[in-house]
């Protein structure tokens, strides 16, 4: 499955809720304000294990828009909108944590 999270981990509980129910083969794509959770910060540990397994992606345009390109945490992979489409195609059912 592909899980998309579009809100900052500092503002809402959606990333935590996603992590509470994600299975072992799913991946997460951070989009919109969700990319704030991709930056190195006090909550980076939430995503560290999944990122180390190569299962965390972030939308590059949204990262650049928020001026945090140089701060993206280790192992989080940046994708463009075509990469977003590929993730949807490859990973089956899409769950949006809106």
């Amino acid at each position: 499955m592909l899980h998309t999270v579009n809100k900052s981990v500092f503002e809402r509980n959606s990333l935590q809720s996603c992590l509470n129910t994600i299975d072992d083969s799913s991946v997460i794509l951070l989009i919109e304000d969700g990319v704030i959770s991709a930056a190195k910060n006090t909550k980076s540990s939430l995503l560290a294990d999944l990122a180390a397994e190569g299962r965390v992606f972030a939308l590059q345009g949204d990262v650049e828009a928020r001026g945090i390109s140089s701060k993206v945490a280790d192992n989080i992979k940046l994708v463009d909108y075509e990469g977003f489409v590929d993730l949807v195609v490859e990973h089956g059912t899409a769950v949006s944590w809106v």
Partner: protein
Amino acid sequence: MKISIQINEGPYQHQASDTAYQFAKAAIAKGHEIFRVFFYHDGVDNATRFTVPPQDDRHIVNNWASLDIKNAEGEPELVVCIAAALRRGLVDDSEAQKNGIEGNNIHPAFRISGLGQLIEAGIQSDRLVVFGD
């Protein structure tokens, strides 16, 4: 692949509609079919022809219209939920007449229909992706 999209928020207030548009454009560029875009909740406000954004800003309604997403019968597959639309003041000629409203504000690239179109999109498509607040 056949992909459908559900959009829960209106234009400008949230990025949902922008992201969905960029996603749809990329999907089409990669050779996928956008089976249907279903506008629900405040998403219905993406379908108004009254929008006049600032000249240096993107025109979200026209962006959607430019994708020209139609089915084999030539009907638009930019579908606006009727229940959500009436609650929020998005009407076509037919609904305006039924409800005693003078005028309409739907953009011709969109059509109003029932919630069944969302379920049908889920059944007929290989993927359904939701964009919201």
